[in-house]
């Protein structure tokens, strides 16, 4: 069963107006994510990955080009396209549960979703911290709370902006596994921003390698290795070398 939506990004360029000149951030980004596909966006920091997610979320219109979900132009935000932001941006005046229920509450469907909120909290391992306030959480717990908040909206497109960046390496491994399991169950279309090549290869069906700012798609790499994957599988190691080469970081063999 596939719940995800098809996402078309057609010739999208984006620039920010700075004081004197325009800062070009995205240049002619063009790709399609099939329904239920897991796409990783890999690129150096500051190249425009978060900006691309903001455009898909509908928080800003692109300077040029079009974005479509299931063939319909994106004109604004919609809960079917939710983002787990790079900063957890939890509301400090709400408990973990209060934060997780933000989406249903905003849409007036709190009663229907009570069960789902508890499930999401359990899934990210925060059931015991439902009444805690954000200032009482560690960085990793805050990111997990932020993930729960995104999940309760049953997104068709889930955007994850460096979701595991603040986790220690052990929790990170566990969460990567959880993310795949979650995606295999719900089959949303996933856009994962990361700067970790191994993470991209472990999780995604496809890896879009972006250039320095302004970001262009340098390569569109399909990861055929069936799941569950291990980072030392030969095909993944080969892909890793290829991608590091593209990023100009090839290890001397």
């Amino acid at each position: 069963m596939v719940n995800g939506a098809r996402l078309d990004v057609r010739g999208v360029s984006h620039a920010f107006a700075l004081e004197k000149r325009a800062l070009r951030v995205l240049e002619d980004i063009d790709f399609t994510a099939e329904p239920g596909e897991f796409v990783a966006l890999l690129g150096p920091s500051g190249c425009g990955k978060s900006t691309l997610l903001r455009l898909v979320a509908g928080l800003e219109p692109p300077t040029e080009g079009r974005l479509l979900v299931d063939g319909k132009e994106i004109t604004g935000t919609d809960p079917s396209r939710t983002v787990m932001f790079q900063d957890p941006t939890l509301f400090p005046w709400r408990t973990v549960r209060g934060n997780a229920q933000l989406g249903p509450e905003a849409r007036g469907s709190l009663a229907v979703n009570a069960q789902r909120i508890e499930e999401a909290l359990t899934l990210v391992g925060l059931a015991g911290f439902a009444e805690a306030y954000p200032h009482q959480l560690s960085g990793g717990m805050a990111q997990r709370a932020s993930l729960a908040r995104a999940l309760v909206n049953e997104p068709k497109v889930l955007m994850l902006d460096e979701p595991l960046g603040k986790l220690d390496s052990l929790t990170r491994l566990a969460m990567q596994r959880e993310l795949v399991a979650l995606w295999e169950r719900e089959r949303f279309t996933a856009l994962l921003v990361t700067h970790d090549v191994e993470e991209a290869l472990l999780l995604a069906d496809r890896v879009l390698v972006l250039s320095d700012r302004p970001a262009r798609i340098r390569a569109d790499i399909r990861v055929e290795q069936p799941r569950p994957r291990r980072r030392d599988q030969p095909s993944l190691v080969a892909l890793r070398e290829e991608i590091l080469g593209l990023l100009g970081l090839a290890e001397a063999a």
Partner: protein
Amino acid sequence: MSATTLGARIAAPAARAPVWPSGWAAGLAWIGTAALISLWPDADDLGRTWELAALAAGFGGAILVGAVAATLPALAPRLAPLRAAGPWLLVLALALAAWELVTAKLDWLPRPFFAAPQSILEVFTDDYARLGESVGRSLLLVAPGYALGAGAGFLFGVAMGWSRIVGYWAHPVVRLIGPLPATAWLPIAFFAFTSSRGASTFLIALASFFPVTVLTWSGVSAVSKAYYDVARTMGASPWFLVRKVAVPAAMPSVFVGLFMGLGASFSVLVVAEMMGVKAGLGWYMQWAQGWAAYANMYAALLVLALMCSSAVTLLFRLRDHLLSWQKGLVRW
């Protein structure tokens, strides 16, 4: 292993708390002051000397009981705040003794301008009805005015912070008129309103309106855009963004405004009661001064101080309750 030792330590009977030296000293000082008041004859014929002495003696006795109780393990934790007040209780006893000496006993300070402690006590025992009524009248005047001004200021501040158009038009006006003390409007207000009560309510409301407006406005303007982005991606309506994002995020700043507005309201209250309204504590003080009844004036001043301080305490309690998420308190 370590769990057992920890358990054993908790189970062990709590030791007696240490003695409370400043408590003993304060208790004895109060009783000494009581002796001074009652045994040393007054220089002049003053009322309520015996009552004052009895009060001081009773207070001293209560402190001594507290000093004994504070060493009992069962009561020690609850009496900890009292312990901290020890030096204050001692100094207050000494101050009362000194005041009593230079006024009632030695008559060094000119009367009636400097009132003896028993004269102020006499005001409370003899004129409590009028004082009580004045407190009631003051509260009935300041409460609606403050509520009106704070409520309007809050709504206006949110509108200014939220809507660019409201902000554009309101900002210069607030900048020009906001810093003006509300009492400057007094002549206009008493002219424009037919009743002095209406005029005073208007002025008190005005006094709290501006600080609440400005601080609500700045609180709402300072809300991080990222919070709005989060809520918007989840389908929040503009109304939801105002109520559930802008307002809660601005609350710490709003409370600063409410606190400043409260002080401004009280200051206008007293002036308004002195100038136009013929009731309330401000009026009582002015009336007392007219009769050279300085003891009454000081008594009213004391009551006013207690009233303002209690109002601020209440406001802070409310803040601590509503903004508990700010503190490092562990609450689950």
